[in-house]
């Protein structure tokens, strides 16, 4: 059973603004009977661009009906410009949240609103007239819709995309494309500026202690597995001198072990500038 908030239940059981506006100034329609949910949104807008009335007709589950109803409540009294800024997140927030598997119901609200506002501007929109290229054929979801959901909701997995747009929830044939869209869209997103954390520089003593600890606890055990061993000969600032014992001693590829194992580990764990050299004894 879904965990719906009291607000979702209330808007579902006693939906406000259900019905049609026969002389609507704008109508927006999304979804289909076959896909399992559909929403038709009606708006009455006055001359100053204020939404005077909003009604809906919805075929779908409880959260689809609640999302549609709450959206009409949000729209009433808003200007068209204000309405234009409503996102699916706003709809979900107004309901006190939706189960993540049901976020697509809030997205359906946003899409119907978008379609209605286009209709208001006189742009031609029909239910079949989707913009962009259809990625998910099961639910007729386009790349443009998916990109928008990824951007606005900061989605990071295919599962997320399915929860928000239904794309990929059917035959799964489009999962590869969804992964590419995710990667591409996330790469386009401006990255939050990461401030380098201020770190107090390590003292020589601290560095020596940490190098010893990493060699003892993390490097030596892995060499033991191959019957080898390592000895810390000296530490001169950022230069670490080691020599090998057991199977590693005289091993022709020991220089690789120095660079690939020891130096890599110490750079990762202690300091990126560390240089390791082997001392043959």
């Amino acid at each position: 059973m879904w965990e719906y908030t009291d607000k979702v239940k209330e808007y579902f059981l006693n939906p406000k603004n259900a019905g049609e506006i026969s002389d609507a100034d704008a109508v927006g329609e999304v979804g289909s009977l076959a896909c399992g949910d559909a929403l038709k949104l009606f708006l009455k807008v006055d001359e100053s661009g204020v939404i005077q009335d909003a009604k809906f007709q919805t075929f779908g589950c409880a959260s689809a009906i609640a999302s549609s109803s709450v959206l009409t409540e949000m729209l009433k009294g808003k200007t068209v410009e204000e309405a234009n800024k409503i996102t699916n997140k706003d709809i979900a927030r107004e309901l006190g949240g939706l189960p993540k598997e049901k976020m697509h119901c809030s997205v359906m609200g946003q899409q119907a609103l978008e379609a209605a506002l286009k209709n208001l501007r006189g742009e031609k929109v029909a239910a079949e007239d989707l913009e962009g290229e259809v990625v998910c054929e099961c639910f007729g979801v386009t790349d443009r819709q998916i990109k928008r959901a990824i951007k606005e909701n900061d989605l990071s997995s295919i599962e997320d995309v399915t929860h928000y747009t239904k794309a990929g929830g059917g035959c799964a044939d489009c999962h590869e494309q969804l992964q590419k869209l995710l990667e591409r869209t996330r790469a386009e997103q401006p990255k939050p500026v990461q401030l380098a954390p201020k770190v107090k520089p390590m003292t020589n003593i601290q560095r020596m202690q940490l190098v010893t600890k990493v060699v003892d606890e993390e490097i030596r055990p892995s060499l033991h597995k191959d019957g080898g061993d390592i000895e810390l000969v000296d530490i001169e600032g950022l230069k670490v001198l080691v020599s090998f014992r057991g199977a590693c001693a005289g091993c022709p590829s020991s220089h690789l072990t120095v660079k690939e194992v020891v130096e890599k580990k110490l750079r990762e764990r202690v300091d990126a500038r560390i240089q390791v050299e082997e001392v043959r004894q």
Partner: protein
Amino acid sequence: MKITYMDNNATTRVAPEVMEEMSPFMDTLYGNPSSMHSFGGQVQKSISQARERVASALDCSPEEIIFTSGGTEGDNAAIFAAINAQPDKRHIVTTRVEHPAVLNTAKYLETRGYEVTYLPVDDTGRLDIDQLRDSLRQDTALVSVMYANNETGNIYPVQEMARIVKERGILFHTDAVQAIGKFNLSLNSLPVDYLAMSGHKIHAPKGVGALFVRKKAPFRPFIMGGHQENGRRAGTENSAGIIGLGRAMEMASQNIDQENARLAGLRDRLEQGLINSVKNTRINGNPDARLSNTSNISFKYVEGESLLLMMDVLGICASSGSACTSGSLEPSSVLRAMGVPFTYVHGSVRFSLSRYTTEEEVDLVLDNLPGIISRLRDISPFCEGREPGTVSPKYEN
């Protein structure tokens, strides 16, 4: 609020008689049946009695009954026993309408190199015997066909199918979770090698079931460990559950014909009442061979989850094959296999009755459901003559 429980194919209430018989085994008789002392040993005797009761209800010998944790374990144990005993045979036959316990096990085996034939069904959910015959191959290890379908209540001709399969020397398993206790079934004359059943569908508790393994049919334990169940199912026995299952089996096999007639009467009253008062309604399933307790009915232009939640407010419990209730976005694979139009799949509701269902409860549904449907249809953008977007999604099957 009074609960009107019409979801008995999902689970049933434990019968008071069953509970009464179980309770000493959770209280004073808590000994381990494997123990040497008589305090534990006496529990073993009660388990043996339960085994005899189950065997007698199924008309088989007690040695052929292995107690399990339920239907899913029984299905898994039977399938893996059959294929592991014949490593050279790499083909399995099952149906498109199986319960996930079999369907997803078959899909898993496909990833392990097995070839699986999923027999299709017609629009009422019937299998074609000729297609079964044609699907059998030299390397077929197992045929697994459910006895009765959990969603539609359809009963499959397992007797005839098993006979055909056994003539070819191939092992046959049936998932009989929904069939047990609903009609008389004799394993003496039903030529299956394995049969899985579950306790909680017949008024025993959850977490107990039984697997029938015919003498000489290959078997190796699915759960490894101790020597319980003759070395065929390890783990300390769920003694209270097993004893409950024994009692429940005994109760289920009493007055079975009389009870079936009563249930069929209630089910038909429910269906006829809904068909008469709600337009654009459709019954899903095979009217000629259906469990008498099950009704799968679809209402066009409304969505199943909404229907269930509106009934929930009145304490009425049922299920739906709609996508929104599945936890995924895919509606019922059983209804899709039957080719039920999507517009009906989304609006499907399953009512499943039990020996506790009364006529008053059926009437409560009849009094309220038509109103709920018309409320939902009033706010739906679709109605007769207005059904845009009829493209059919292609789901994986």
